[in-house]
């Protein structure tokens, strides 16, 4: 049964050394699905992604990737297994060029990755013109593209995105969401945290509403949007 899931986390407890921040989080998405995690500030959304990616000690609960236990496996083990992660902040190498950023995403690959580079430049056309420019000099939206491109360069089967549209203009936000849907079409599962909850849930296959380190609601994106309780408490009416 669990083999059906791309990633499946059950009853996660853990934190940063003090009190538990996660108190029983459940996350599961199937292959080629987009999962969206929403919830108020400090709910533990970022912490959940970190726990899945081995950046936080999971004290209780399990994480499986394609049916294999990866609980508390460190990132350097998970990247070769097909997981990639884009942090919420500081998610590009500012002093490296755009292309070098992408190459660092392909660090774990020993094959020729030139095709993947071209592929990234076709999904994110603005990056092609700026490939020799330092990533730190780009606009916020372009930096986010570099960050996602970097993660995609390892050819992951699952990509974790932490608020990819934070601080972006609505125009860029639509572009990024567009790319997320395209990434999934290419057969990559996406698990993302989003502040723009309504827009993100609209294209989510599964939505998770977290509050105070626990799942409040878990359902399809459409069902969550339609649920008056969710709408009232978490989607701003």
């Amino acid at each position, binding site marked *: 049964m669990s083999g059906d899931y791309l990633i499946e986390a059950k009853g996660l407890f853990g934190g940063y050394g003090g009190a538990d921040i996660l108190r029983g989080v459940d996350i599961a998405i199937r292959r080629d699905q987009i999962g969206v995690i929403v919830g108020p500030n400090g709910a533990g959304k970022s912490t959940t992604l970190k726990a899945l*990616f081995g*950046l936080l000690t999971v004290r209780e609960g399990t994480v499986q990737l394609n049916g294999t236990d990866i609980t508390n496996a460190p*990132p*350097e083990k998970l*990247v*070769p297994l097909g997981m990639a*992660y884009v*942090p919420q902040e*500081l*998610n*590009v*190498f*500012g*002093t*490296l060029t755009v292309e*070098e950023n992408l*190459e*660092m*995403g392909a*660090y*774990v690959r020993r094959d020729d990755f030139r095709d993947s580079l071209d592929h990234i430049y076709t999904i994110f056309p603005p990056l092609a013109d700026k490939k020799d420019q330092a990533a730190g000099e780009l606009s916020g939206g372009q930096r986010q593209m570099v960050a996602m491109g*970097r993660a995609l360069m*390892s050819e992951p089967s699952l990509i974790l995105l932490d608020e990819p549209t934070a601080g972006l203009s609505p125009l860029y936000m639509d572009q990024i969401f567009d790319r997320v849907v395209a990434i999934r079409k290419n057969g990559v599962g996406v698990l993302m945290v989003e502040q723009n909850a309504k827009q993100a849930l609209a294209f989510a296959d599964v939505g998770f509403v977290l509050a105070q380190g626990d799942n409040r609601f878990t359902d399809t994106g459409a069902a969550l949007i339609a649920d008056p309780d969710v709408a009232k408490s978490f989607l701003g009416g």
Partner: protein
Amino acid sequence: MDELIFFINKVLINGTVIGSIYALGAVGVTLIFGILRFAHFAHGDLMTVGAMFALIVTALAASAGFTAPVPMGFIVMPVAMAATAVLAIGLDHVFYKPLRDKGTRPVVMVMASIGVTLMLQGVVRLFAGTQSRSFYIGEQKDIFRIAVPIGDARRTITITEPQILLIVFTAIVVVALHYFLTRTRRGKAMRAVSDNPDLARVSGIDTQMVVRTTWIIGGGLAAAAGTLLSLDVVLKPDLSFNLLLPIFAAAIVGGIGQPFGAIAGGFIVGFAETVSIFNWALLLRPFRDIWPEAIEFPTRIAFVPTEYKLAVPFFILIAVLIWRPTGIFKGRQF
């Protein structure tokens, strides 16, 4: 004319020589700071130890009867560089890594490196004693005197063989380092770790490998600098003490974490030293005949007396920290 040649010898050649030494040392300091985020105070001692390794192998080669067209110390330098790189990795493993793994604050790492300094100095004195030693065992140091066929010049531009080797070696290092950091997978990974270690880790970059590479480059270049300096003058056990301050000044002037800034910083500090201790009165000599009687003809005008040479990098260091803490190449703030 003679005065100008004297200026070339004392300021330009000496500045290039000492600047190269500082540059080779400062690159290591700045890379270690960029990757491991602490000021490695034992770096001067890696130079001394590296030179000592080279001296030992030179002595062995000399006693075995080997001869070479260039100084034996230069021939065996790669061996000393490799040995020092291994030593640096070993020191990291025994002293710095356990602290790092515990998440120790940088200031504690600095303290640990001061401990390593004292330990290495003790070891050097234990094995090599406290006297100065020459690398020229049954060899002659070649000195090139280039006559300048202009005017009435009697002096020659003077440069020694080890000085030429040092300058050529430094130039090769600059080019090789640039190639390594901008063209190779490992070099780019090093820059990535220096830029953002957390992101490097989540990208799957092998940070252990990057740390090892840092010590290999830092240790290797330190050994080369120590050996080449000792070839030019002599190997003194207190070598490191006199080099540490200018090397840190060079790294900070260049912008900490910036390898090419460190190289530029090395030459800035080197030239600042030679310019400061140069006796500028010598350049007035041609005008002695037309010098007004009323003013005494100056025989010595130097910014700093030679004995206080070390004050120059110290002054530069403080000035940079006050007025431009990120250095000329915009590095990290200390």
